[in-house]
């Protein structure tokens, strides 16, 4: 039912701007990445150091499919250790309002719904993530906060779903191609 519809990516919008912000400002509290090690280091040192990048061949990359609110499928790749928020930001994925608190567990806009078999193998959820998740819209049994989920090889090709924002399913209008 996800009919094609017009492309609705206005690249200059939220996600890309956030990427710019990540590298140029340091928010007071600093992001508290849910993923340790690589992702945190990468975030701190963004833009990525080339050497770290070069050692990753494209085979090491993990593909993730996002089903957006309007049913469109967005496909992107990330490195092991990247959080799903990193994937959205680094690839300028156009998901309305995603990642408002920039990964600091203070907003729940990064809520994603996972496939059962992937959900079961995710790292245990912390109380803090659960507290924030409790405020998310359209909570399901397989919901998690994307900024807290780090990519692993076993996740390659997984599909995550962005929950409906408003209770009633409204026809979304897009006129972004007008100018």
């Amino acid at each position, binding site marked *: 039912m996800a009919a094609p*519809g017009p492309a609705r990516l206005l690249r200059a919008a939220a996600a890309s701007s956030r990427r710019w912000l990540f590298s140029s400002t340091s*928010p007071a509290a600093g992001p508290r990445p849910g993923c340790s090690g690589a992702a945190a280091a990468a975030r701190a040192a963004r833009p990525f150091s080339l050497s770290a990048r070069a050692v990753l061949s494209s085979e090491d990359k993990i593909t993730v499919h996002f089903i*957006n609110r*309007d049913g469109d499928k967005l496909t992107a790749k990330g490195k092991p250790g990247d959080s799903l928020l990193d994937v959205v930001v680094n690839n300028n994925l156009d998901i309305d309002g995603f990642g408002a*608190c920039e990964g600091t567990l203070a907003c729940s806009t990064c809520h994603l719904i996972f496939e059962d078999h992937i959900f079961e193998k995710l790292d245990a959820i912390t109380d*803090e993530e659960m507290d924030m998740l409790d405020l998310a819209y359209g909570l399901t049994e397989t919901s998690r906060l994307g900024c807290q989920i780090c990519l692993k090889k076993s996740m390659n090709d997984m599909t995550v779903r962005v929950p409906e924002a408003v209770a009633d399913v409204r026809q979304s*209008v897009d006129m972004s*191609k007008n100018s």
Partner: protein
Amino acid sequence: MAGAGGRAPLGLRRWLSSAAPAPRVCVVGSGPAGFYTAQHILKHHGGALVDIYEKLPVPFGLVRFGVAPDHPEVKNVTNTFTQTARSGRCGFYGNVTVGRDVTVPELQRAYHAVVLSYGAEDNRVLGIPGENLPGVYSARAFVGWYNGLPENQDLKPDLSCETALILGHGNVALDIARILLSPLQLLRKTDITDSSLAALACSKVKRVWLVGRRGPLQVAFTIKELREMINLPGARAVLDPADFTGLESAVKDASRPRKRLTELMIKTALEKPVEMQAAAAGAAAPREWGLKFQRSPQEVLPSADGRRARGVRMALTRLEGLGDSAKAIPTGDVEELECGLVLSSIGYRSLPLDPAVPFDSQRGVIPNSSGRVEGVPGLYCSGWVKRGPTGVIITTMNDSFDTAQSLLEDLQGGVLDLSPSREGFGLVESILHSRGVRPVSFSDWEKIDAAEVARGKAAGKPREKIVDPAEMLRIIGH
């Protein structure tokens, strides 16, 4: 399933082929509702021009003046708002009070559509005797005071007593309790204003009671904020286990958030005081806070000389009905709670803006359906003034997207007539000029912002807010 996919937007084709004028949209208020509405319109309509008008010289509404200073991560949303404001198709005009400096009908003449996102600037009142005694403050004023809201800088709350009573069980109540009891060294690193920090340093308050008229199953605060309070260094939670008897089974079938929240309260109530003290790093915690339930404020009691508050008389209540909709009915019994400081945290309240805009004073909202103001085509609303003064930023975001969506539908469906071209800010500018009002641009705000950050740096704070609008205007050379 995610449904609303691709109906071919017929309007889109027409738009592309015709040289129709760009829709000019005006947004009143620069809080999350204003910015999220603007963001959604700009993103989903490649030609729209959006101007945001703001009463204060500085943007972001309650993100700057409401969100607690020790929650800097919540304020990260301003990064996205800043990107929106910097977009070539978005204008920001601060220091303009709509309804006074420019009327809504004037805005309607300048723009194809007007979105009202001016939030809730007032608070609910208890309507009980003694409410206006010295020592009684509204939560809204207290929050405005510590967050540097210009209108509240003269509040100077009297913190010379040991016991404070906060009326209400919402997140604002918890914010205030936390600010009153937080160790000073934690607050020092935040953007709390210098003067309120100085006042808190002399505060004698060491006990805070949060009092609700209903029970533990009806609290309005959320678990993250409760957990933060429970984990506050140097402060002990005092919860009466008797208040929670039988609740474990009562919440078995409740929604997960309600269940987890209740379980956390029960667990905290049952924790042995001994363990608590051991946990409080050696010495017994000097400060404490607690929740009291089923007490409805009846009168603020005056001191013997009648000059200030000395306590609150509470009507004890029983609950009629279950869950969220349970009602508090006075049992006839009363109880007096002694305190020197009363903070009434029973909710914010929106005010009507302009006689041209319908307003439901009962519910304190602009009557609307999906953000379309009833009976006034071309007028929209979003945020707290649309929905009432509840909900976190993500709630406000979703309802702002909903309003923007309605507006886009009306553009697409031709409900909004674009044939008369509109002048936008050009027209408003001449009106403002004739009234001696000089708007503040977003780059002006960025100068104020830089000045605040620079002042904060010296003190190791993210910023030192400028609290005097006249000083803000001086910085930008107005």
